[in-house]
């Protein structure tokens, strides 16, 4: 095998600029990006099922119809359930959130008081003295300003989820045909490398999306089970929220941890052992996640150097807010694969020569040359 050169600064620069542009566009059409991403997840999850049905003797078209029909039913039920839940309990959620935020703040206050007792030096710290007021203001602001808006946004987005089974149907039915159609338009000289590019993108996306789903399931189950054993309320819902928050590297885990501690501190305000137990449980699951679950599920797909990951998270947040935070690494991964393969194609002198030769032959054939 020929040793291919590593991507240089220019390739990375182009990759980062394209990633930012895509995130900017994604933020504008987020209502379409969310169903689009779920479609990809659905496509990769359901493809093996369609193949199994085909092997049992069903025609491909019928198998796709059966599978997407089931998906449509499940999505409809899910959307109806979530909409009715959201409209019935939206007001209650506000109060519950405020309650838990207050519980977290009380815990912080108590911890502070204990620290001050043991370390008198802290009494003089201006930061410690001002913290409760600042956090109080922040919690009021969060509940009043952001939570309501967030709930309205979720209710607004839910109907667009009905697009998921529709798009998944066409991806399963015609995805391969469309790919072949695109590849057919590529000149012969670049054909094999283009196939390689499609394969790399497909594999990266598949392992990342499927891996993330498996990872979320494992995290939810472990954390939910652990919290349930510790007697925390809504343990599995809390586990799910923390697992989803962990999609945002580094920052997501910290927010998830704060959330778990906040709920534990509200449920058991005077039981420090349970609160610290939750903290230890969360840290143990993060360690398990990094060293066992992550290599087993996502593997090394779409993983970058920590410095690049953190820088891109800041950039993603600056360009597209929360959506940017969540999407920046998968988008960067796919764009990196595409730009690197394109660089290899465009800088391969042998391929370019072959392409020029084929064009020369074409001209000779048509009598232009």
């Amino acid at each position, binding site marked *: *095998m*020929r040793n291919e050169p590593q991507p240089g600064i220019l390739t990375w620069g182009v990759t980062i600029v394209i990633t930012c542009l895509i995130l900017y566009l994604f933020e504008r059409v987020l209502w379409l990006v969310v169903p689009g991403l779920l479609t990809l997840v659905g496509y990769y999850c359901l493809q*093996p099922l369609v*193949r199994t049905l*085909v*092997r049992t*003797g069903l025609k*491909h078209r019928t198998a796709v*119809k059966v599978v997407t029909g089931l998906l449509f039913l499940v999505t409809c039920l899910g959307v109806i359930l979530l909409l009715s839940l959201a409209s019935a309990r939206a007001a209650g959620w506000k109060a519950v959130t405020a309650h838990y935020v207050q519980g977290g703040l009380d815990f912080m206050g108590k911890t502070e008081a204990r620290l001050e007792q043991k370390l008198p030096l802290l009494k003089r710290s201006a930061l410690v003295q001002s913290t409760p007021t600042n956090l109080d203001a922040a919690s009021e602001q969060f509940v009043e300003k952001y939570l309501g808006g967030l709930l309205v946004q979720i209710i607004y987005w839910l109907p667009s989820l009905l697009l998921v089974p529709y798009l998944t*149907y*066409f991806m399963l*039915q*015609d995805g*391969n*045909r*469309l790919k*072949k*159609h695109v*590849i*057919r338009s590529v000149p*012969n*000289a670049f*054909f*094999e490398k283009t*196939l*390689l590019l499609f*394969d790399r993108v497909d*594999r990266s996306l598949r392992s990342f999306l499927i891996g993330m789903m498996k990872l979320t399931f494992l995290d939810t189950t472990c954390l939910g089970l652990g919290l349930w054993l510790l007697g925390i309320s809504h343990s599995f819902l809390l586990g799910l929220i923390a697992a989803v928050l962990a999609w945002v590297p580094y920052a997501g885990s910290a927010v998830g941890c704060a959330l778990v501690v906040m709920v534990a501190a509200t449920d058991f305000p005077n039981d420090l052992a349970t609160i610290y137990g939750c903290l230890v449980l969360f840290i143990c699951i993060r360690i398990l996640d990094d060293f066992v679950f992550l290599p087993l599920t996502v593997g090394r797909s779409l993983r970058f150097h920590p410095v690049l990951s953190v820088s891109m998270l800041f950039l993603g947040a600056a360009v597209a807010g929360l959506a940017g935070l969540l999407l920046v690494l998968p988008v960067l991964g796919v764009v990196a694969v595409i730009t690197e393969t394109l660089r290899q194609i465009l800088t391969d002198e*042998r391929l370019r020569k*072959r392409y020029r*030769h*084929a064009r020369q*032959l*074409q001209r000779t*054939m048509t009598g232009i040359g």
Partner: protein
Amino acid sequence: MKSPFNFLRISADDQRIKNLKRLSLFKRLTARELRELDELLHERSYQKDEVIFDEGDTGLGLFIILSGRVKIISSHAALQQLAPEFGVGDYFGELALFEESHRTARAVALEPTQVLALFRTEFVSLLERDRGIGVKLLFDLSRTVVRRSRKLLMNQPHLPTV
């Protein structure tokens, strides 16, 4: 539900499957297996004298000739001595299905040629999900590799006759 990509659908699907069945590599496969395999095959057309792949390229897949003729040219003496030429139904580049290595020869179309390409990673994924197709294809591919290796060995003057 009518697909918006209907224009992509090859009208003579059944005829295509029949044509695939005629190819020596696929003659053992059933119609259902051929349909599954057909999803992975890429059709390409080459002009006379056009290079299909070059010696030293990273081999990524196998080519099956649907029409036309292909000449193999190599800097390796043994291969050059044989100077193989392939016609309709033959296939070449099969070693690329088994390992990612350099092509040992150049393949050039001797006349306007149509080929089907089977990409290694797609072939491997097919083997993983349908062992029935895998066994049939691997059997034929192995037989061809053995036959070609034997031919190469017998043409080496310094090697004993096998």
